[in-house]
């Protein structure tokens, strides 16, 4: 295949991959600390996309401004969900957390289906279709912004985890919950903070996606399965793994789409996911956050 087609495909794959990585980041963070998969992650993404959609539709807020309202709001929502619903309902059992997050995802997704119907909606922003030439390819501006912000958020999150006291507490709880508790760390608070951070990642991703993407009640499911793939590929709980895995999956999807057609691009991801799970369940660079 000629380079003039290949290079744009790879670049576009990287742009998509960065937003995938951001969604995966929230998932991997929660897994790294609570050692549990948050099955409500996709539903939270759908909710965030709807929130961004309605903020633009009803209040006329640009998604890039709405992100400053939505990310703290979703942090609070995630915090409250873990603190007041998931934590108390689970009675400390892992399988109960799984069931509760599954229940939450069913409730959120179907509530949205009920209120907003199955219609697919999009928003119009003036920059929606603007492009810039990069290395001989024309790249969409909003998607370039998405790439930049996603990488920035990953770096900030990394800094938060390694430099701040809260970050140190989060890592302590992830490594040794009992030890952290004994040294005075409020574990249920840290759990809730982690969950909140995961939700905030999803809110940011939603604001980055909505200018070029669409929203319907099932849109989150597709993204979250990709995010699962990335998390497994990058190693459950690893932040650099999520970033690199996200970019990699974005490129793979783009190339699969180019060679095999759009609908099979997704199948390529799932096959990769299943193969990785079976042969290298700890991921390509497995480590704990």
């Amino acid at each position, binding site marked *: 295949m000629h380079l003039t087609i290949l290079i744009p495909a790879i670049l576009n794959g990287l742009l998509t991959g960065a937003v995938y990585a951001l969604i995966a980041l929230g998932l991997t963070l929660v897994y790294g600390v609570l050692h549990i*998969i948050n*099955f409500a992650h996709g539903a939270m993404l759908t909710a965030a996309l709807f929130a961004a959609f309605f903020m633009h539709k009803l209040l006329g807020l640009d998604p890039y401004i709405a992100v400053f309202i939505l990310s703290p709001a979703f942090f609070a929502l995630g915090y409250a969900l873990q603190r007041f619903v998931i934590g108390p309902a689970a009675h400390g059992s892992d399988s109960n957390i*799984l069931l509760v997050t*599954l*229940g939450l995802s069913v*409730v959120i997704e*179907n509530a949205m*289906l009920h209120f907003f119907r199955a219609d697919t909606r999009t928003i119009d922003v003036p920059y929606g279709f603007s492009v810039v030439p990069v290395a001989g390819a024309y790249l969409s501006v909003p998607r370039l912004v998405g790439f930049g912000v996603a990488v920035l958020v990953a770096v900030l999150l990394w800094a938060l985890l390694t430099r701040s006291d809260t970050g140190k507490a989060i890592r302590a709880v992830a490594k040794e919950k009992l030890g952290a508790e004994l040294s005075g760390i409020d574990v249920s608070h840290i759990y809730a903070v982690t969950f909140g951070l995961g939700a905030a990642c999803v809110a940011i991703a939603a604001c980055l996606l909505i200018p070029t993407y669409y929203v319907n*009640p099932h849109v989150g499911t597709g993204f979250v399965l990709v995010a699962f793939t990335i998390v497994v590929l990058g190693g459950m709980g690893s932040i650099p793994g999520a970033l690199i895995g996200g970019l990699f999956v974005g490129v793979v999807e783009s190339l699969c789409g180019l060679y095999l057609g759009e609908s099979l691009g997704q199948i390529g991801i799932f096959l990769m996911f299943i193969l990785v799970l*079976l042969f290298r369940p700890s991921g390509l660079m497995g480590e704990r956050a």
Partner: protein
Amino acid sequence: MTTLMNRGFLSIVIVVALLACVPFLTASNSVLNFLVTGLLLTLAGQGWNVLGGYGGQYSFGHAAFFGTGAYATAILQVRYGFNAWPAFAIGIAAGAAVGAIIGAMTFRSGLRGSYFALVTLAFAEVLRIVASVAPFTGAGTGTLIKLNVGAQAMQFQSRAAFYWMILALVAIALVVTRLIEQSRFGAWLVAVRENQDAARALGVDVTRVKLGAMTVSAALAAAAGCFYAQYFLFIDSGIAYGTWISVEALLAPIIGGIGTVFGPLLGAMMIKVLGEAAKHLIGDAPGLDLVLYGMVLILIVAFAPRGIAGIVAQVQGWLTPKKGKPHG
């Protein structure tokens, strides 16, 4: 031991016999339809219960087996001119085979807990996507089984015949579950649930036990799928491999009482009653029943982790005067 065995099976005989009398008491199609869908869910839920309730392996993707059974039954008849009865049997076998394959792959690589839930969910989702684009399954438009009323085509004129058929399948599922519960295999399975590493240390072949449970579990869920296709005569990827069946199949035993023989039956009927009540109160709106089911799932996990069976046991505990230390 024999009296215990008899008592265990006697309860099944009584429950099934009572249920079998229902068509003699009412000819109402809506009552029978309600019970048929309830028993259909019981069958799928019993499948989940064998693996999740007794074996502790929580699958979030029983749609993979349900859908495979449904599609196999439908496609064999529509595309290959099979008679419905062998198609039904092959459908069950196909679902069991998918279960065995997924089980062999996941258990061999030591996946459990979160990972197992994730892998089963992913497999169901992959199958759903494939079924929604492959021309073989009718892609987006789904597969319609031709109307051909007659017992030889397993399309009965009366609802009662369908009702007895699903009741017979449920009866088999109840007996199979009771047999597992009272067998050595069942004891191994429970040992794996309680502590996998300890079970292995005691010489239980953990992988084989889980694989066996998964195959039986998938076969039961597939039987529910085969029956669905035969009863409604239409399936598409969203019905056969949709999340709804994965959720309801796990909800039934969790509401009724996880790891008990009658739990799924109790839970499935509760779910159906809830769904109907919601329809009457708020009207038929898409998604609303699942909102309700999701909430019930959270509430049950939070307040009654052993389901209705657990609540009943607790109430019995309060009513009977205490003699010495309570056990269990």
